[in-house]
């Protein structure tokens, strides 16, 4: 018994020695902070009524710097209107050990490839229509409590193992807790979600394969494969399946299959003017291919985008979420101007185009809106 304790003590000492030996001069870290304040006013037209929504959002980012082997990050988001809301979308630690990297906390992993539609994103799911607006440079930025191990295999290849004890929670389910037990309720081990992926470079093409199993609600096996490369234009193609863990019906295999594909091309027009095109598609063979009233579970969605930058600081963008099955669309036109250091003036118009039975029907569900505002980062 004593010998076993000594062995454990020796192993612990070796581990401490290894960790401390990584960067004895680098253990101290400093904080780099930045604040993003976004003030806007939105005029909405919904259910026959025109409304105004003024809002301020402010984000505080605290990022450690100066330590090459340990990293901490905290983001605090606040929403200020007539009422006040607070969220912590990111709070995590990263530790680099001799052969792998460990991440622990609330953050995001980006599996697969695709700007809006990504069948390879089996963790967070990027095949649905976006519930929020189409503004912003990152349309999918959900986070969740997770632990991951990243194992590099050369410069361009790696393996990553991830586990999400609580899965991906709906933000609307978040509540303020008054005790640690409420913040982190005990979870049965079998209800945890987790998976593994590997990314490998083959010439100019990158292959990513992985598997993820969900543990909560409807347990599923989710294998996927994702490819991206360049042939005249940048392209990506992903396919995944969401197979019920209990009682899968292989006669309905098309219900399990998800496919996404994307193309992107940027044209330099000279005089620092650029024009870019993006087209993405999400296909679910087993979903609906005929129009139903107010339907959202359709088999095909498209996302076209055209961006034009007449100068380095000015950008015009036209994006749409198109539902070809019922011939409706949510269109989004935006202009932004980075006039001074850190300051951007922006305006955007969001417009659903469809009749009374469509997914994106005028004046219902998806409101028409016009927003104008300022964003300052310092």
């Amino acid at each position, binding site marked *: 018994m004593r010998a076993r304790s000594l062995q454990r003590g020796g192993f612990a000492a070796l581990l401490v020695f290894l960790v401390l030996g990584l960067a004895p001069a680098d253990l101290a870290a400093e904080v*780099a902070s930045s604040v993003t304040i976004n003030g806007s006013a939105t005029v909405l037209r919904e259910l026959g009524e025109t409304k105004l929504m003024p809002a301020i959002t402010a984000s505080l980012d605290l990022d450690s710097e100066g330590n090459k082997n340990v990293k901490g990050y905290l983001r605090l988001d606040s929403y200020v209107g007539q009422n006040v809301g607070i969220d912590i979308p990111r709070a995590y630690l990263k530790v680099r050990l001799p052969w792998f990297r460990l991440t622990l906390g609330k953050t995001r992993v980006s599996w697969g490839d695709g700007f809006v539609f990504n069948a390879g994103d089996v963790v967070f799911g990027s095949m649905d229509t976006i519930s929020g607006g189409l503004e912003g440079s990152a349309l*999918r930025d959900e986070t969740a409590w997770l632990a991951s191990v990243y194992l590099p295999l050369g410069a361009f*290849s*790696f393996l990553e193992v991830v586990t999400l004890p609580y899965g991906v929670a709906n933000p609307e389910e978040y509540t303020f807790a008054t005790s640690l037990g409420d913040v982190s309720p005990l979870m049965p081990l079998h209800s945890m979600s987790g998976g593994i992926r590997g990314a490998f470079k083959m010439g100019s093409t990158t292959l990513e394969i992985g598997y993820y199993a969900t543990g909560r609600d409807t347990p599923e096996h989710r294998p996927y494969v994702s490819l991206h490369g360049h042939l005249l234009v940048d392209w990506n193609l992903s396919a995944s399946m969401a197979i019920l863990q209990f009682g899968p019906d292989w006669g309905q295999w098309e219900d399990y299959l998800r496919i996404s594909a994307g193309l992107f091309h*940027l044209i330099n027009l000279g005089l*620092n003017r650029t024009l870019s095109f993006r087209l993405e598609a999400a296909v679910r063979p087993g979903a609906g291919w005929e129009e139903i009233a107010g339907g959202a579970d359709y088999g095909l969605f498209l996302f076209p985008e055209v961006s034009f930058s007449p100068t380095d600081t000015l950008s015009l963008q036209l994006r749409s979420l198109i539902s070809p099955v019922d011939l409706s669309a949510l269109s989004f036109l935006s202009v932004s101007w*980075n006039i001074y*250091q850190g300051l951007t003036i922006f305006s955007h118009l969001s417009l659903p185009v469809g009749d009374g039975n469509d997914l994106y029907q005028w004046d219902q569900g998806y409101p028409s809106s016009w927003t104008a505002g300022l964003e300052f980062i310092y």
Partner: protein
Amino acid sequence: MNRILPLIFTFGLLAALSVSAITAEEIVKNVERNEINEAERIDGSMIISDRFGSRTKTFISYASGSDKMLLEFTNPEERGQKILRLEDEIYLYFPEAEEVIHLQGSALKESVMGSDFSYEDMTGEGDLLDQYEVTLLGEESIEGRKHYHLELKARKRGLAYPKQEAWIDAETWVMTRANAYSLSGRLLKEMELGDIRVVAGKYVPHYIIMRDAMKKKSSTEMRIEAIDLVAKLPPDIFSLEELTW
């Protein structure tokens, strides 16, 4: 930024008229010997000026040889965004979305953060003599110092600049001026380097001013705040793992 220097190099004929004993290839080799390092770290800033004023971006860059570079922005607006150049590949990392983007094709010519530098400019183009046919046009005096005037013509398609012109200080082997041209001969960019200091036995210009000839009242100045030419870099710093750290 020392790695950024080779971005524009230069250029011709008239070699028969040259009175110099040195060849254009030898001049380029001397320049590369002075500016390419096995391991370097630079803390720098980029000041972008246009008619509305100026914007400052700060960064830390690491480089090894002529084809490996990792650059991380440290100013609040772009903090954590990174650019990795490894061999012929350029990758961008956006921490907000935890997303890696592989830059390919024409996207390489896109402006970096609204500056007058493209991604190719920022990360270098590899070995110059492999990529350009070099000709010594003659000798000139600039601010009282003897300079070699070179012309560089691209050996293959797809390089950032089909033709370049450069002036090399004959004593320090620092390129102090360069112009880049399109295939049709139109002036695209002008570059000026200065504040040359001796660091670890090498001559290092501490500022570069880049002007895009197509844009009026616009320029970008890059400044070296600190430089270490014998930096101890981790062996796997030029990798996707470091990019996403």
